[in-house]
């Protein structure tokens, strides 16, 4: 077992994990943050996308120990303190950008990171920016529209890594 410490959604967490424990399993099974989903075993679907130090990452492609010292944001951590949904979540709601909702947490996290990184998005760049996140239900058009609405509105509240006090 290895010790790992990271901040998840602003809270310091310490875990004892097997070295091979994937970050996604540490989040889901150890910390019971089950909003992050698993859709594949080949890093293909993006259902597991979280932010690691502000960058979107597929949490099934990282070992938990590799996230030692990192600031991690999951879907549970993007609403504001009063529980008001993040503008990206709200836009997904308003554009009917989800059906079964299984891809949605990963898709929202990827979209938040995309909008932050590239303020000038158009239909083409959103589609390519989200290429690593699969959705079987929506056909993507409403997802693209939701992301564009946030990109265009200036309401993309930046998600900055939470200050964990670590690594500073």
């Amino acid at each position, binding site marked *: 077992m290895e010790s790992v410490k990271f901040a998840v959604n602003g809270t310091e967490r310490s875990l004892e994990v097997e070295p091979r424990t994937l970050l996604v399993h540490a989040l889901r099974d150890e910390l019971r943050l089950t909003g992050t989903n698993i859709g594949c075993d080949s890093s293909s679907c993006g259902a597991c996308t979280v932010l690691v130090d502000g960058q979107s990452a597929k949490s099934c492609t990282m070992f938990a120990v590799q996230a030692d010292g990192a600031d991690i944001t999951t879907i549970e951590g993007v609403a504001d303190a009063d529980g008001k*949904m993040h503008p990206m979540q709200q836009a997904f709601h308003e554009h009917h950008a989800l*059906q079964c909702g299984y891809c949605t947490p990963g898709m929202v996290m990827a979209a938040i990171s995309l909008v932050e990184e590239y303020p000038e998005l158009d239909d083409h760049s959103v589609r390519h920016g989200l290429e690593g996140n699969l959705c079987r*239900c*929506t056909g993507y058009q409403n997802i693209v529209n939701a992301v564009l609405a946030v990109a265009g509105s200036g309401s993309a509240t930046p998600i900055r890594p939470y200050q964990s006090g670590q690594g500073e």
Partner: protein
Amino acid sequence: MTMTDDPATHMGSHRLRREDPALLTGEAQFIDDMSLHGEIWVGIVRSTEAHATILGVDGRAALEIDGVTEVLSGADLAPLWGEGALPCAWPVTDDMRDPAHLPVATSVAKYVGDAVAVVLADSRYAAADGAAAVSVDYDPLPAVVDIEAAVAEGAPLVHEDLGTNESYTWPLIPDPKAVDAAFAGAAHVVSERYVQQRLIPAPMEPRGVIAAPGVANGELTLYSATQIPHILKVMTAVTLDIPEHKIRVVAPSVGGGFGCKLNVYAEEILCCALAMDRGVPVRWTEGRSEAATATIQGRGQVQHIELAADADGKVQAVRVKLLADMGAYLQLVTPGVPLLGAFLYHGCYDVAHYSFECTSVFTNKTPTDAYRGAGRPEATYAVERAMDSLAVAVGVTPEEIRSRNFIAADAFPYESCAELTFDSGDYQAVLDKAVAMADLESVRAEQAQRRADGSNRQIGVGLSSYVEMCGLAPSRVLASLNYGAGGWEAATVRVLPTAKVQVITGSTPHGQGHETSWSMIVADKLGIDPDDVDVLHSDTAISPTGLDTYGSRSLSVGGTAVFMATDKVLDKARLIAAHQLEANEDDLEYFDGAFQVKGTPTAAVPFAAIAFAAFTAHDLPDGMEPNLEAHVTYDPPNFTFPNGTHIAVVEVDTETGNVDIVDYVAVDDCGNQVNPMIVEGQVHGGVLQGAAQALYEDAVYNEDGQIVTVNLGDYLVPSAAEAPVYRVASHVTPSPTNPMGVKGIGEAGTIAATPAVINAVVDALRPTGVTDVTMPASPQTVWRAINEAQGGAS
């Protein structure tokens, strides 16, 4: 649509979904999010051989792994289910061959992925490690992979004891002589062979099961990522001989199904049997690569279709012969899938004579079963491709050949040559709208220009007009097809003392937004806010009666039950109001959430007052039972027949074979719409799934029966980058079959898109001499088709 006296304000509006917040914030619970105290994990050892005798299972290495507690072979497990085999509920013919299908094979593995042993462990990782460490000794047997090879003389047999690979032959030939005569006298005969490749359904959530025993009372709770908790309860009771009233089945949030979660799976029966035996919760979560062979696949047919037409291209007869791939075993409705298309091979055309025959065969591959559209995409593909061939033969455009053959708008209700009664439609109006939206005139001008220029980026236009049968189904019709259940749906509408409403539905949503739509239906009828209506489902302890969600049946059958139960509530409420107002109930009207005496709006009883009066029961009419609640089980008198025309415009790079969908227009008639936002969403997702069959997806097996497309890196579920932009419209002809005039939309896009896209690809390539492209039309396939047509090497 007149719903009540009350002006309907929510039906027909783009109301946002109440399901969303829990899904958007991660609060929703999918099966793998759950965890029960004391649970043990199951890891499944799956056959690596397509066909082999199992000589032995060696679990010693697995048992050395920390956390692995037991390794069980099929023979070890056999006493848990005795003779109880996995159920097939659709014995389509009396002589259908249905080999016994045990949850874990005991002596012979029949396909790659067939369960051959089970590991029990105390964690997810230990179960996976343990399953990987079990070694199984196989003696390989010859495998049969291809369906045409399976029916050839001397083919290896999947089930030696059956003496044949054929499961059944099912004909529908009302008048054979008339069909022969039509072909003999035809000016044009089109004869085509199409292959429906196998597809992996791939909902983004893989399957998962947790079975929890109630030891003291012999109870069992089964949590499963299923579309069919109600059917699963009955089948689990029957298969494992557990009293049905001791079983509760719960479908938590389910991450898509598309038909593949409409089944009774080995893992469900296995976890239940182990849980009952060991007295602890037993769980299994499917891995994505595991799903490639452990979950049913879709399609898998070779189709021969012939059209006999007169000189004007008016089709007189359709003749179809199918070979359908069942895979190694019959799952829940495997044999019925071709039958769901059997009635629709004449498409939306007025054809006099019909001949359909399907032979279904076993192969050493994963069983097939229902996948979005189930039988109807296959039928539509065949007839819509063949109609384009006919258009070429006659020398008219694809839209003209369709117009010449459509069932006329004034012909409804229409008795089809396959002995169905089509409810309503205006197929020509739908096509006209689609043609106008797609601006075919300009597209064809551009196409002509590029052809003239010899451009290597050719344009193609593909039409697909479809009609499907939905709203499964009148129970008596299902009886005539040997289906093992009815086609009704149940609903309860319960008014609480504070006038809030609970709706209990037997439909089982997994992404379709039933909670939102059902609340809109009830709210409009009662004149209340949809937020005051809760919708409960997917748990047999809460919703004990139902037949679940598949076949685009939820709104037209389940929604109708909700609609009718609300009517019953209103009928009782009216009696209470009449009593309170000392008026005759016929003199009352219900308006804006209150009963009032017609013409005397001052004398009114609001719904809330009636709800409370029904609860206190202090002053109800003599003999009336307290409380305000109604239950309806609705058995539809007929199917519904959604229809539409879709148009795909593609650009094909003739040098690389790459296909891009540059425009996609969908005009659908799903009858009246409760929530057009949800309708559009269903069309978008359905179209992409259909287009994916045309261009990307293929469950590839090699000749040894090994599956090649195991994960989402190999099996190409399209991303946003491949997805086209959809332009969606509707044309409404209300269905006369149900009071809301609704038809169904869940499968329409998938049915329409595949032939539209392939017709477009073929249209683009006609100048090169190409007349057919096999699916999926990958760059290699398209490139090869062009090369072959031009006499080059393939």
